[in-house]
């Protein structure tokens, strides 16, 4: 099962067979869902053996699901929330991370500790307090309320701090000699050298906001403000009888992320490594 100097043909065959079996288990359900979403109303969904390729592929279910629930509005809300979360996290986490890693001031330790403590508080244990708070601020049932609690993730701040701390200083010292102020050093020297970590923060902020369910479910009550996840839950509750429509809805919700993942794979994997060790 592990490293040896040479791989025997038997081992190779066994490995490929196992890898393919796991592939069927992990990706198969997604393909089955895609297939279901493309099957027309007259095609039997329950044939045996199951038919992965639709007999007459149709996009009709996508039009139909959009007719029943405003699925494109949900998608737009999700895009708004995810993009806002990416921007606030990039700005907030990189600024705070830079201050913690590079600036000298009284209270730096305490500020760093605040982010570590925030990391220890599970979201689920403060969700009622957040709900009450958002109500008191009269923000409930708005997309702003969906974004705010995750606008600057504590983990992202710590990731950025470590990234800045790893950049050699000499570059910044040169800028100081040239008379650059803090802001110029931050934007022109420091930020460009941590692009990789910025990408990780951006991707995980997007994914986190796009996939989030519990918080938007609690905060949003007006269907016009639903994000895709909350909207899908609603769709499932109302129209569960036609699997084709639910399938079309889920494909709309998952396709953008899978596409992003295919394009930006290495950042996803980097994020797991960095986030797990610190988290």
């Amino acid at each position, binding site marked *: 099962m592990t490293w040896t100097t040479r791989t025997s043909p038997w081992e190779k065959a066994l490995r490929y067979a196992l890898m393919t079996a796991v592939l069927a288990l992990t990706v198969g359900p997604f393909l089955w869902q895609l297939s279901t979403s493309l099957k027309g109303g007259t095609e039997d969904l329950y044939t045996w053996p199951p038919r992965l390729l639709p007999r007459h592929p149709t996009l009709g279910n996508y039009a139909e699901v959009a007719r029943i629930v405003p699925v494109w509005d949900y998608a737009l809300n999700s895009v708004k929330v995810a993009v806002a979360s990416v921007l606030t996290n990039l700005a907030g986490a990189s600024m705070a991370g830079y201050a913690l890693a590079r600036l000298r001031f009284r209270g*730096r330790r305490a500020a760093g500790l605040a*982010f570590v403590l925030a990391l220890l508080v599970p979201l689920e244990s403060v969700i009622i307090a957040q709900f009450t708070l958002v109500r008191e601020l009269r923000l409930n049932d708005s997309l702003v309320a969906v974004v705010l609690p995750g606008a600057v993730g504590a983990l992202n701040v710590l990731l950025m701090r470590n990234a800045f701390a790893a950049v050699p200083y000499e570059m910044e010292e040169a800028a100081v000699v040239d008379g650059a102020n*803090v802001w110029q050093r931050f934007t022109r020297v420091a930020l460009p050298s941590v692009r990789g970590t910025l990408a990780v923060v951006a991707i995980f902020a997007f994914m986190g906001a796009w996939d989030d369910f519990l918080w938007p479910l609690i905060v949003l009550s007006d269907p016009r403000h639903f994000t895709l996840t909350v909207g899908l839950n609603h769709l499932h509750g109302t129209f569960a009888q036609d699997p084709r429509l639910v399938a079309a809805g889920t494909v709309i919700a998952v396709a953008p*992320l899978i596409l992003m993942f295919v394009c930006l794979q290495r950042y996803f994997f980097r994020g797991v490594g960095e986030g797990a060790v610190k988290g």
Partner: protein
Amino acid sequence: MLRPVPGRPPRVRRVPRVRTHRAVSPWLFLLPGLAVVAVFSLYPFVSTVGRAFTDARTLSPGHWVGLANFRAMAADEQFWVALRNSGLYVLLVVPFTVLLPLLLALLVEKPLRGVAFFRAAYYTPVVASVVVVALIWNWMLDDRGLVNGLLRLADAGPVPFLGDEWLLLFAAMALTVWKGLGYYMIIYLAALATVPRELHEAAAVDGAGPLRRFTSVTVPAVRSTMVLVGALSSVAAFKVFAEVFLLAGPTGGPAGQDTTLVMLVQRTGTGLGGRTGYASALSLVVFVVALLLMLLVLYAGARDRTTRGPEGEAR
């Protein structure tokens, strides 16, 4: 005011060589991040502790009631069911999330042709929202779904995965394990990359078979990663919400028997009639148990290592 700390020689640390000229700028840099964390994480925690001792409702701040919420909890049958379910979730999910991704990482560790594709593909369920994944499983586990079709082939009658209290809970657990496979696999792959190849070769020369090499080379080498995965996944499992909410429904399956602790928090504390005081007390239980679980796993891991001696060090 920013100034050199008196009595400390300059350039003691790596960090403070580049200096700011004005003391306000660091705080301006920190302001957005600190504000969000303070207002939406630290303050809510403090207010949760305070509210747990009141009879607050969504629309009224309530009054101090001492330990009444906790006494009510002890008498609340729903609470015990929820605690049982969340506890079972940890007990039954964590062994699988610690072991299966490790085996999977070993499977895709060798640089065979196309292995990068398999690794990426195994990650797909991690990328997808739990809502999407739960709806897919919902369809597959339906009485007439794909899984029951396969079972029919083996002459087993339709299994009511989504109708039975226990089967529902087990299905949700399987979903959690399945969705986490790729995530923990990546963590293990990073750890496996640091295991010296010579160890395996030496063991192979000594005549150790694959199983023996797994238990006496691989496992000791990645033990600290297994502890990390154990800690991460037990906290996550205890806080389970979406999987059960979506498969069993908002009310938690037949007679609410599948309700988990976080589902109970969500159900009691939200909406216009939410009993936020009682829900805050429940939230504190979530917090304390999650923290204890993490400490317990980390402590067990640390103790295990010290009793086993330094050869157990992973890095």
